[in-house]
């Protein structure tokens, strides 16, 4: 087997000096990912803003950031294995003294260790969760440290806990273990493993205890490699230059800060601003608007306009918002931004999709019951026997009605349907159903801080042996048996050290041979780039959100009501993606701005210090769910029922997943049941900390002072009393269904065309066949009457007939009001297509389709139950209804004229305002004409007869979901329209029906009695 050539990549090294001054001044967030909590049905993740480990250690914390390729998820969903050996070298710049250790990251604490060593190392090891296989591999190692390791078995499970990461002196070190490296850049259940030192202490971070050293300047070098396996030819290195150490620390003032401490600088300047929004775009816009308008007085309209300009800019398609409907499209866009979408299935597989949705609901309920039981068992002395009994009933495999058995039956059903639909079938071109939508979490944008280097996923430098920089300078020898690649990097490190400290190599210089590594060759600074935020929001429901027909208006936020608030907390990884997005959008501005201007703007934007993140978990907590890591069942049947099987069969890939969260039991209390978020929030606490845990309290409600106190700080995006609005949004994914009655291909009941010349309404069938004409005649009793002149002998379209019958009963005034309403709606409608015949427009209006549409809300899965300890009863959620507005007369691209409720022609709800106040035609949404309401009960859903231009979309507004557009298939519509003819009857003309009735049109005022042909009497 040929040996692969060595590859050299670089790591970024960071250091935090913890001297007496800093340890006394800065709060350090110290918490571990404690897998052992799992056994008590608690999350390994601590409660946000919770308790700390407070260590008074003095020294330098080192951490290394692996190249992006080792930190990124692979296409198969796994994560790359990371090096398991690190040579850490500290060089004293003053004395030249060298101290090296080798960190064996997969070495457990063990019996083999001396008491002293054990106690010294213990606080810096990382508690890791090992699989049976990994534990067996370590136990079978020839190395006495590994085969006597302390492995604590998980209760009822095949996992083991072990404290990993042991440093050994580099002198005389040799590889004692031939085992395969197994640690990846994502620890079990912990994707942030590489981002925080307490998650990876002695694995990707090392504490250099300098309690015995008073003062020095140090150089650090870290070299990483794999002890064995297919990556043994890969080596990693990083260096840190001139790290100042003085145990007593330095008194820091404005003009004297030897560390260049960024955190202290931020604290002194106090220039941190926090913007909160209903979503990331909202928060970013609010921040931008505040930045642009700083110190200026502008009207609310101007401010609003600026929001829209930014919204269209950030959408990446400014052109989309041009034209008369631009403002409405922006509003649509802003509304959509408030929601997250999820897959809604296809029309062809609806039966299977629905069954899977129900299965997932049952799985979530079952997991909740299973989890609650486990939790109560762990805290038995506080549990209520009644609750326990109730939980056990649902988990009873002998009872057919238990939740367990319901879930089992549903799983069988899904399996059967899966076999029917999926096996061997291709649904790639299936017609997609509308997606489900759920309200987004609020977003926090923090200006004044930069994102951590861990987020840098730029190109990686890969060097070979020939690229390494070396010359004749002899490096101090590391005795021991190290791989060749490590020795080379070690030599290079000392080459660079010699050149840097003698001033021979700067970051821009290139050595005589080789390529300089791409880590920064510059003096160390005590940097601080926050990686995490922890927050607490107090939320209060509000009932005074008003639906204005298009969205929910922001109400007066009123005073803070501490009695009715719910508190939610969370932790999130910060990033700067909004700034990146802004920069990306600038690329599309090259047609509007000159290159120089663009360059200047780009440089300015790059300097923005922005970080932010969604307050993930907020909406989930409102829905009584906790998204932190949690324990899965060990029992195989339960695992399969809950969808937690690792089986890679296509069936489980398609249908599996199970519950992704556990019941939110915050401090033993399950939050109040809600199905809707509609209220206001108060940001009470916000802390930021970097990968070392160094913390900045930005907002604090407690006695300890943040930069801002929670009741006084200027939160961008918040209104009176520092409250920010959280407009109505459903907590369970839902969608608005518009089911058309009738045959699948033709969802039209019929068509009408108003005829201006004859003041009549031509009526057509669903396929465009001419049925007749409605117009006003005068009876021989000299009464005006709406009359239908039937074109064909028999009309089969019963639906259209019922409309015609109803119209015939209308008065002349009502009929004309109806025609006027149709005409008025045309004024604001855009002509579909450019080939509109202007002459025809003078004579007749455009064809309006009539469709019967049923409007209701549909949840993804079963209605969510109350997960509280005694919950589960019927909630108002099931019968909740919401106002829905159809059509938008202010938008040119909206085709709705109006609608009748199905089978009820007493009122026509018109998009246009009728000229006269009347009882027949009423403007939608005005007094006496409320919006339609839609709920979750399909059977009770209102069915409406829509009159609309089938070539234009109809917009449906709910405020709790994105704006929905109904758009007919244009080709199918045109096919029907082409069949339609518009007969123009210009009177006075006498017409005779088969029955012998004679009619004279328009003002000739005579209706012949049967068999009396008085046609000659017309004028």
């Amino acid at each position, binding site marked *: 087997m040929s040996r692969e050539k060595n590859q050299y990549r670089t790591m970024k090294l960071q250091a935090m000096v913890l001297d007496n001054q800093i340890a006394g001044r800065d709060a350090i967030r110290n918490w571990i990912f404690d897998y052992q909590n799992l056994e008590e049905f608690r999350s390994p993740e601590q409660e946000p803003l919770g*308790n700390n480990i407070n260590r008074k250690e003095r020294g330098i914390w080192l951490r290394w950031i692996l190249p992006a390729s080792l930190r990124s998820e692979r296409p198969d969903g796994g994560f790359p294995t990371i090096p398991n050996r690190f040579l850490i070298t500290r060089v004293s710049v003053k004395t030249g003294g060298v101290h090296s250790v080798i960190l064996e990251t997969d070495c457990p604490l063990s019996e083999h260790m001396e008491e002293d060593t054990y106690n010294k190392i213990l606080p810096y090891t990382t508690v890791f969760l090992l699989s049976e296989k990994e534990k067996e591999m370590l136990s079978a190692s020839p190395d006495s440290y590994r085969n006597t390791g302390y492995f604590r078995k998980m209760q009822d499970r095949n996992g083991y806990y072990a404290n990993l990461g042991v440093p050994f002196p580099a002198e005389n070190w040799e590889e004692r273990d031939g085992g395969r490296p197994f640690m990846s850049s994502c620890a079990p259940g912990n994707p942030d493993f590489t981002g925080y030192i307490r998650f990876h202490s002695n694995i990707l971070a090392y504490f250099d205890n300098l309690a015995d050293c008073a003062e020095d300047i140090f150089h650090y070098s870290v070299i990483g490699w794999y002890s064995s396996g297919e990556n043994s030819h890969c080596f990693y290195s990083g260096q840190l230059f001139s790290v100042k150490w003085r145990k007593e620390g330095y008194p820091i003032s404005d003009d004297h800060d030897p560390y260049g401490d960024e955190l202290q600088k931020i604290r002194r300047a106090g220039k941190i601003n926090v913007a909160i929004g209903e979503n990331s775009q909202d928060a970013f816009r609010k921040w931008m608007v505040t930045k642009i308008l700083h*110190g200026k007085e502008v009207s609310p309209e101007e401010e609003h306009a600026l929001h829209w300009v930014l919204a269209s800019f950030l959408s990446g398609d400014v052109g989309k918002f041009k034209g008369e409907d631009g403002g409405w499209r922006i509003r649509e866009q802003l509304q959509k931004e408030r929601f997250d979408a999820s897959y809604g299935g296809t029309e062809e597989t609806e039966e299977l999709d629905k069954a899977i949705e129900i299965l997932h609901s049952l799985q979530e309920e079952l997991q909740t019951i299973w989890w609650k039981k486990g939790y109560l068992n762990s805290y038995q002395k506080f549990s209520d026997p009644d609750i326990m009994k109730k939980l056990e009933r649902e988990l009873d495999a002998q009872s057919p009605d238990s939740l367990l058995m319901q879930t089992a039956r549903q799983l069988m059903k899904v399996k059967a349907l899966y076999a029917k639909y999926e096996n061997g079938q291709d649904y790639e071109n299936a017609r997609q159903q509308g997606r489900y939508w759920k309200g987004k979490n609020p977003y926090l944008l923090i200006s004044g801080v930069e994102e951590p280097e861990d987020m840098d996923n730029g190109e990686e430098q890969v060097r070979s042996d020939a690229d390494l920089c070396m010359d004749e300078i002899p490096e101090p020898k590391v005795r021991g048996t190290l791989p060749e690649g490590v020795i080379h990097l070690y030599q290079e490190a000392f080459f660079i050290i010699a050149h840097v400290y003698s001033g021979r190599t700067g970051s821009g210089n290139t050595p005589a041979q080789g390529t300089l590594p791409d880590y920064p060759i510059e003096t160390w600074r005590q940097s601080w780039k926050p990686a995490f935020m922890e927050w607490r929001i107090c939320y209060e429901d509000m009932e005074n959100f008003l639906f204005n027909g298009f969205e929910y208006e922001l109400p007066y936020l009123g005073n803070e009501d501490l009695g009715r608030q719910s508190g939610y907390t969370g932790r999130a990884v910060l990033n700067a993606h909004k700034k990146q997005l802004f920069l990306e959008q600038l690329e599309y501005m090259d047609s509007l701005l000159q290159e120089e201007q663009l360059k200047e703007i780009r440089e300015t934007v790059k300097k923005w210090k922005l970080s932010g993140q969604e307050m993930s978990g907020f909406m989930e907590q409102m829905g009584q769910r906790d998204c932190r890591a949690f324990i899965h069942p060990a029992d195989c049947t339960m695992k399969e029922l809950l969808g937690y099987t690792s089986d890679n069969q296509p069936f489980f890939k398609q249908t599996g997943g199970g519950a992704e969260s556990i019941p939110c039991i915050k401090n033993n209390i399950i939050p109040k049941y809600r199905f809707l978020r509609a209220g206001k929030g108060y940001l009470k606490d916000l802390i930021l900390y970097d990968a070392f845990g160094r913390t900045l309290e930005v907002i604090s409600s407690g006695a300890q002072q943040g930069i801002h106190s929670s009741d006084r700080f200027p939160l961008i995006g918040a209104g009176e009393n520092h409250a920010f609005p959280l407009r109505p949004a459903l907590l369970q994914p839902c969608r608005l269904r518009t089911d058309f009655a009738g045959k699948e291909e033709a969802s039209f009941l019929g068509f009408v065309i108003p005829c201006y010349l004859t003041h009549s309404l031509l009526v057509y069938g669903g396929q465009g066949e001419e049925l007749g004409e409605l117009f006003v005649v005068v009876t021989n009793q000299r009464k005006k009457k709406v009359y239908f002149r039937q074109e064909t002998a028999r009309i089969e379209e019963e639906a259209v007939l019922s409309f015609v019958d109803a119209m015939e009963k209308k008065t002349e005034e009502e009929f004309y009001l109806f025609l006027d309403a149709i005409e008025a709606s045309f004024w604001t409608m855009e002509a579909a297509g450019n080939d509109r015949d202007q002459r025809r427009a003078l004579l007749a209006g455009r064809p309006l389709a009539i469709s019967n549409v049923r409007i209701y809300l549909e949840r993804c899965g079963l209605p969510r139950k109350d997960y509280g300890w005694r919950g589960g009863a019927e909630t108002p959620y099931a019968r909740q209804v919401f106002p829905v507005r159809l059509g938008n007369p202010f938008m040119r691209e909206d085709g709705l004229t109006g609608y009748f409720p199905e089978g009820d022609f007493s009122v026509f709800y018109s998009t246009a305002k009728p000229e006269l106040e009347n009882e027949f035609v009423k403007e939608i949404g005005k007094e006496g004409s409320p919006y339609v309401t839609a709920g979750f009960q399909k059977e009770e859903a209102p069915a409406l007869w829509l009159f609309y231009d089938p070539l234009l979309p109809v917009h449906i507004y709910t405020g709790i979901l994105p704006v929905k557009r109904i758009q007919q298939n244009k080709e199918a519509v045109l096919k029907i329209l082409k069949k339609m003819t518009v007969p123009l009857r210009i009177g006075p003309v006498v017409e005779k029906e088969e029955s012998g009735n004679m009619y004279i049109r328009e003002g000739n005022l005579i209706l012949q009695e049967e068999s009396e042909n008085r046609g000659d009497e017309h004028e």
Partner: protein
Amino acid sequence: MNNHCEVNVSLSIEGTALNVAETGVLQGKLWACEGKKICCEKICIYIPVGNGEEDLFFNDGGTKIESEQCNAGELLIRQGDTDRIMLELSTPDRGQRPLTKPLEFTITGRINMRTGKVNVEYEYYCKNAGDTKFEQMSKDFSFEKSRAELYLQNFLASNSESGSEAATCFKPKAPIYFSWEGNGTSYELYTSVNGTMKQVIQTVQKYYLYRDGIEADSTFLLKAVKTRNSVDDINGTREVYALLTLTTDCPSYKEITIKEKFIGKDSAMAMLGTAIELPLNKMPNYKTLIPKTDGILAGYLRPTSYLEESSATLRATVYGDSREEEYSVEDDAYSVKISTGAGEMELKNGASVLLPVAQGKTVNLYWTMTKPEQSELKKNYDLNWYFFPFGKGDIQNKP
């Protein structure tokens, strides 16, 4: 077979009682009996929280446990109407090896308002070295809550946050960092202005950075307030005071510039100088001023947004004098050059005028703004006028 594990535990406070409405500190310890080797898996401390007599801390999420040797966690437990916070400490190796030194920890929290006796449960899981199973043991500790006298002391001023040296003499307008010690629920800081006391800040903190500084010798008064928060607080709201007098080291210096900001759209403009301000309501495009002293009039016009093309012109003329004395600049370019007679000055993103004026001469100030047609968004300006008098006196508006 396990032998009973003998362990010592303690939970103590400083003094004999805890003071209501203050931060309470409990010191905990666990150690092996003489000559014994024990392993400790974890410690759980159950503290009643809420507003009742039998509750120790408020149930405000602010209860903390800290230890150098252990990992800390917390959980609130509700049983009936009682809330108890369980503070958990686990050893990093969950008791794999015997303790070599006592386990020590500190609990802090805000004591509630009610006096009374409270019970704290101390639960610990230990075993003798060599045994297999951990034994669960517990012990109860009780503490007295009583009321403390309100105090306020060490009211000091210093130059900066880090400088701990107290000072009494400051440069005019230099920031002053006040700090104090006390046990009030809130504090109010006042300063004397024209003989009356004006509140500077009301805070719950025990420090305040007074960025405005002082211009003349000033006396500051600090009031500590303890509000009546509980039914058994018979004393009601209580207050104590502290006084501090500070002097300036350059009392003759008097700054005359005060800034105001205006927005171009409304044609507002003002004159700033010694005690005279022009009205801020709708202004014509010019203003006439008569200085009572020689001085320099400076105008600075700065566009503050660049959303739309437009431009403004700033002019100042000495009334009745020849046109040559008109100074005008336009900002229609990013960079403009203006002549002030004293040389050329390059300005970016704005325009300014410097005009020497003589006592009694009438000065007309002009400001015009032009806007391109079809422009929707307006360009806004900050406009500041400053008057630097050479002698005593001020300026006044011409009626």
